[in-house]
């Protein structure tokens, strides 16, 4: 059983998935970030592959990607960083990136290497399910990788069922139709949407992402799903961090509501 499946079997609620951009703030901060997040109590980590043209991301993640790229981050470096970090932790790791990166690496090679270094799952926001089914589903399954697809408030019921079927690991539930880091808080309209999905009895657990930044939004999200995903808010904290470990600890505590940052 995959690390992701195991996590969701063992823990049904308040799951905290934190995204960070690999190579940010320093080229070699990947390991420190992962280990700090684990130590601080994150349940799942989304490792972002920095990309020149991240269409589905907001300015914070874009800029962190630019920094990572000018720090010299490449996929090969990232894979070896993960490989060595994997010796020290069993936390589930999900790789997030754009499909062009996968294509250029060579699809088969990419999936194999993910498996090899200890990646558990993938989020490829611009790989549509049609392409996935037609060309990549078999490869990814054979590599033993989970894959998360997104659903949004606009996704039709029929399509949600289809996406749920194709997803392995967890569903990425976009809180509102907007790119990461764009809006704050959770509205009534969103709650109605969360409830609607809840009522659908999907097979996959669900994490809510986009717009989660603090204890309030995290707690609300956790009322309607198995947990939530935080990205930009964490990147913003890291940007000004003197000590990754300490910053991360405080950030996770803040989100979990265990202490309030001063």
């Amino acid at each position, binding site marked *: 059983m995959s690390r992701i499946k195991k996590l969701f079997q063992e823990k049904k609620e308040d799951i905290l998935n934190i995204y960070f951009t690999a190579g940010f703030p320093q080229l070699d901060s990947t390991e420190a970030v992962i280990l700090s997040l684990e130590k601080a109590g994150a349940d799942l980590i989304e490792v972002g592959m920095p*990309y*020149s*043209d991240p*269409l*589905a991301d*907001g*300015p914070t993640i*874009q800029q962190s990607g*630019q920094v990572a*790229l000018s720090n010299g981050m*490449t*996929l090969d470096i990232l894979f070896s960083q993960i490989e060595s970090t994997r010796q020290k932790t069993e936390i589930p790791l999900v790789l997030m990136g*754009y*499909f*062009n*990166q*996968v*294509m*250029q*690496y060579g699809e088969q090679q990419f999936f194999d290497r993910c498996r090899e270094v200890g990646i558990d799952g993938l989020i490829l*926001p*611009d*790989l*549509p399910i*049609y*392409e996935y089914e037609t060309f990549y589903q078999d490869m990814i399954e054979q590599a033993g990788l989970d894959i998360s*697809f*997104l*659903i*949004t408030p*606009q*996704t*039709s019921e029929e*399509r949600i069922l289809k*996406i749920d079927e194709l997803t392995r690991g967890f569903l990425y539930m*976009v809180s509102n*139709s*907007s*790119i990461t880091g*764009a809006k704050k808080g959770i509205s009534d309209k969103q709650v109605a949407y969360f409830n609607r999905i809840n009522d659908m009895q999907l097979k996959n657990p669900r994490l809510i992402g986009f717009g989660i930044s603090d204890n309030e939004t995290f707690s609300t999200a956790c009322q309607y799903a198995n947990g939530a995903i935080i990205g930009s808010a964490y990147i913003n904290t890291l940007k000004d961090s003197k000590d990754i470990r300490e910053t991360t600890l405080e950030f996770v505590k803040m989100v979990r509501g265990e202490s309030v940052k001063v």
Partner: protein
Amino acid sequence: MIAIDQKGYYGEFGGAFIPEMLYPNIEELREQYLAIMADDSFEKEFRQLLKDYVGRPSPLYLAERLSEHYQAYIYLKREDLNHTGAHKINNTVGQILMAERLGKKRIIAETGAGQHGVATATVCALKGIECIVYMGEIDIQRQAPNVARMKMLGAEVRPATSGSKTLKDATNEAIRDWINNPEDTHYIIGSVVGPHPYPDMVARFQSVISEEMLWQLKEHTGKEDPDVIIACVGGGSNAAGAYYHYLNKDQVRLVAVEAAGHGIHSGESAATSVLGTKGIIHGSRTLLMQTPDGQIVEPYSISAGLDYPGIGPMHAHLIASGRAEAVSITDDEALASAYFVSKKEGIIPALETAHAFSALDKIEYDSSDVIVVNLSGRGDKDLATFIKHYDRFHK
């Protein structure tokens, strides 16, 4: 047979690599665009606006002094005479009617040279619809007249400040806006790029160019087919329009002219056919300039409309399959052509179009050949650049 398949592929190029947030918009468009375009009332309104508002048909003009110079029959397809000064308006007229029928209340667009932004702002003014145009900061500087025009037309121009601050980045920002406003907004893409069905839809709207060429050439020369069609390729919409009705007539040579900037291998270039490899950009699998790691390379051209690291999937297919010949033209070659054509024919071409003219110096042809150069736009927007470099070319 050159054609697009059900899923939006020309051969191995095309498709729709989009985040789920865009799926409803793109799917709605994909399901409806052909039916809407086939609708009588749409067709009628589209044709009427092309005629009375845009000023179509655009003339096909036998350029006698160029013909004499190049020793061939050089015809110019005068898209520069369209309202707003380029071919771009053919597409925006079509798309604003499409957006109206889809019930959209807000329009976004990206622009490089500003011609597409102006053409979009224009049709939005015509229909009284809100319009936001994303434009790279560098392009805002180098195409200032078009920025002023968009303001006059009531559009908001938002600068794209990331990456190379040019067309690619403006497109990123437009897509982000669309992701954030999935319900009421239609994104008017300005070229045959982006996720399916955009490349096909834009090509169909632009196909009026070659539709007219068929009967105009017949009128001028007695036959529908030229020997060669030359067009510049940024994303490739003017070329797609000029080639469209000739795609499956193999006797007609198609020449695609791209920007080589300071030289193809200078590191400052936008010569995608030479430097590009297969990959995904702006939702489409096509040829693009990228690092081995799949990072998109920042392109360079003096011409904002050609300063793009990819080409539309139709053109990737035409070039990869050998149906079209690609020619790469440097900044200086294009400038020289702009000065030359202005003085020979009294027509100041856009910098983009000047690249197409330069191909006449590069390709082989016979003195009996009928060559159509698609004069995609006028050079008013580029006067500052032309004047800046003028002395260097006039000793």
